[in-house]
């Protein structure tokens, strides 16, 4: 009667909120079943308890006295109702509890799942995308190649991230290439300025001017090194390339010429090896940086010693200073700086670029660099140049001239001017200016000389070109496998033809001797014309002088070679009077 009216509301009232609270946590299908289950269970418990209570109440009413029946009915009814309510509440609570626990477990499982997905996103997906971007991929490529993400939010995060990183990467690359470009221009300027300075050094004989030029040259070389360093750090090509192997002495001097305190560097090298042209610039730059470090971190009065040692695995160059002793930690840090794999410039401080440059260059050319305490009290750096980069100095440069000038193999191509003998490359460029320069030099007597001089000229140049110095032997003529004269690199065909013609001409005795005498007289004249007015145009006339002497020696008797210059240089007035007579 009353109890059915009372009890259902709590069942429905408690059942629905329970389902309602479970809803956000659980999904959409399970709450209905659990909520339904709870409600059904509660209703069942209510039904059973109502039936039991009513049966018990009826039984109690029937068994009770007539007079007490109303009271019993009320009491039993009330007790039944209370019982029903209690049972229902208990049952409902129990069922709710069970369903909530299940929902909680499911929620926990899903939370763990999501956490795993987040971890994957953070640890795998994002780094993959970022690395792809760092390696130069565009944002779209990187996103397309990224593993699938778990949620929309993650996708959005990834897109934003990719765009930003890509933008940053672009900016970095633009800054790097701007730096590299600027460094390249400075390098080019420094290189051409070095060539200009070299030419000026040849042109100006005044010692004061030369001193200034040398100082400028030195400054320029240091500037070039800094530009080279920037180029190396920004990943640009190195500035200069050498087309030929560079002998060790030149490597060391080239390196030491690029640092401020080069006068404190002492070279101890008897090595005759050369470094392959493609690596020479890098090796020089690396050594320059190490020498610079050594000179900077040692007292200004101490010397920096450089030793060269040939070992089985290549050549070891040691740069030792007498400066600060680097501690264990400092040595390790230096090696770390050299070995540093990361290519970014953030780890560099402005003043410590040297070791990073050394590291880059060492990796590029496969050099190994190690640090150790030095016997001189400071630090020693060992650089090993691998055998692949080591060659002997170029054979043909040394071979033809062993008696008088094997050494000039490095020095003979040094002359930058077109008129200088031994300048290797463009023959057309060389022979023509040589003739042009020399003509006005030697002045009027020159014009009086018809053919013989020109031939001597050619011969002299020939010998100079082929590297044969004052040898008595005829100019070394190379023959190919076919037996035909072989054209040397940078030589014109006409020059080869002349060279092959000369031996026969000189062998022809009267003609040969005549030309020899002719050449000598001409020699006199050259000395005569030049000696008083030598200072302004020293260089071309010097070259001419050498050419004539060589021509004379090549044609004449080897015994005379020693005496030849004597009369030429001895008395200008005499020889001029002689030649005057000769022409009449």
């Amino acid at each position, binding site marked *: 009667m009353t109890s059915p009216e009372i009890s259902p509301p709590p069942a429905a009232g408690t059942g629905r909120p329970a389902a309602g609270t479970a809803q956000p946590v659980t999904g959409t299908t399970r709450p209905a079943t659990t909520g339904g289950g709870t409600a059904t269970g509660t209703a069942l418990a209510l039904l059973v308890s109502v039936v039991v209570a009513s049966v018990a109440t009826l039984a109690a009413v029937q068994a009770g006295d007539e007079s007490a029946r109303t009271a019993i009915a009320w009491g039993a009814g009330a007790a039944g109702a209370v019982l029903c309510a209690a049972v229902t509440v208990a049952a409902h609570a129990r069922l709710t509890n069970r369903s909530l626990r299940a929902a909680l477990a499911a929620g926990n499982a899903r939370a763990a799942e999501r956490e795993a997905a987040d971890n994957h996103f953070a640890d795998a997906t994002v780094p993959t995308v970022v690395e792809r971007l760092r390696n130069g991929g565009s944002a779209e490529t990187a996103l397309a190649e990224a593993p699938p993400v778990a949620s929309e939010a993650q996708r959005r995060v990834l897109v934003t991230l990719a765009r930003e990183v890509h933008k940053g990467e672009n900016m970095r690359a633009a800054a790097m290439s701007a730096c590299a470009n600027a460094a390249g221009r400075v390098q080019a300027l420094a290189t051409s300025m070095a060539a200009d300075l070299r030419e000026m050094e040849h042109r100006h004989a005044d010692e004061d001017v030369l001193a200034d030029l040398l100082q400028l040259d030195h400054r320029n070389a240091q500037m070039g090194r800094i530009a080279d360093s920037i180029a190396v750090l920004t990943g640009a090509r190195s500035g200069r390339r050498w087309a030929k192997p560079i002998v060790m002495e030149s490597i060391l001097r*080239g390196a030491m010429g690029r640092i401020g305190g080069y006068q404190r560097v002492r070279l101890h090298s008897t090595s005759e090896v050369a470094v392959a042209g493609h690596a020479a610039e890098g090796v020089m730059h690396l050594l320059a940086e190490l020498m610079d470090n050594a000179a900077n971190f040692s007292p200004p009065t101490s010397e920096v010693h450089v030793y060269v040692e040939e070992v089985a695995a290549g050549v070891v160059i040691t740069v030792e200073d007498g400066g600060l002793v680097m501690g264990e930690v400092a040595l390790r840090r230096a090696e770390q700086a050299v070995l540093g794999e990361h290519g970014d410039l953030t780890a560099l401080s402005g003043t410590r670029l040297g070791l990073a440059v050394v590291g880059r260059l060492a990796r590029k050319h496969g050099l190994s660099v190690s640090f150790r305490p030095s016997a001189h009290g400071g630090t020693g750096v060992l650089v090993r140049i691998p055998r692949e980069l080591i060659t002997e100095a170029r054979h043909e440069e040394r071979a033809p001239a062993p008696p008088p000038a094997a050494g*000039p193999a490095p020095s003979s191509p040094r002359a930058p001017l077109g008129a200088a003998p031994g300048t290797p490359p463009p023959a057309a460029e060389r022979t023509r200016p040589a003739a042009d320069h020399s003509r006005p030099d030697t002045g009027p007597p020159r014009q009086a000389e018809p053919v013989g001089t020109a031939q001597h000229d050619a011969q002299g140049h020939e010998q100079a070109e082929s590297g044969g110095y004052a040898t008595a032997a005829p100019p070394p003529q190379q023959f190919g496998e076919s037996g035909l004269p072989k054209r040397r690199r940078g030589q014109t065909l006409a020059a080869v033809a002349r060279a092959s013609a000369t031996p026969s001409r000189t062998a022809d005795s009267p003609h040969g001797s005549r030309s020899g005498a002719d050449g000598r007289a001409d020699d006199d004249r050259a000395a005569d014309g030049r000696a008083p007015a030598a200072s302004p145009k020293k260089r071309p006339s010097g070259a001419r002088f050498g050419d004539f002497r060589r021509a004379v020696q090549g044609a004449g008797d080897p015994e005379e070679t020693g005496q030849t210059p004597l009369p030429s240089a001895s008395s200008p007035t005499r020889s001029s009077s002689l030649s005057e007579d000769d022409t009449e």
Partner: protein
Amino acid sequence: MTRPGRDEDPDRLYTVTGGRSRSTTGAETFDLVTLVVSESAPVRGMQSEHAAILRICRFPTAVVELAADLGLPVSVVRILLGDLLAQGKITARHPRRAQTADALPDPDILKQVLVGLRNI
């Protein structure tokens, strides 16, 4: 003239001279036509220019000719020669000293010799 970066040697002149720009012996010791004779053979470990000078100067060679052979400016060659002279590895002969006026034969005699030679 300039073909930057090619076919030139990397060492600069100031490294060749060790930073000196004037010779210690002075320009009067070596003028352009001073004859230089080497007194010893080059030894290993010597600066390559010094060795080259010693090789070239086995026969008396004028300073200007040395400069042409080495491809170096005369001033630089003078400095190098000054080093070698200080070490006693070369001697310098001054042509002017040999040609004091009375030591030279008379121009007339020379002329006669020349005429005689022509007549042969």
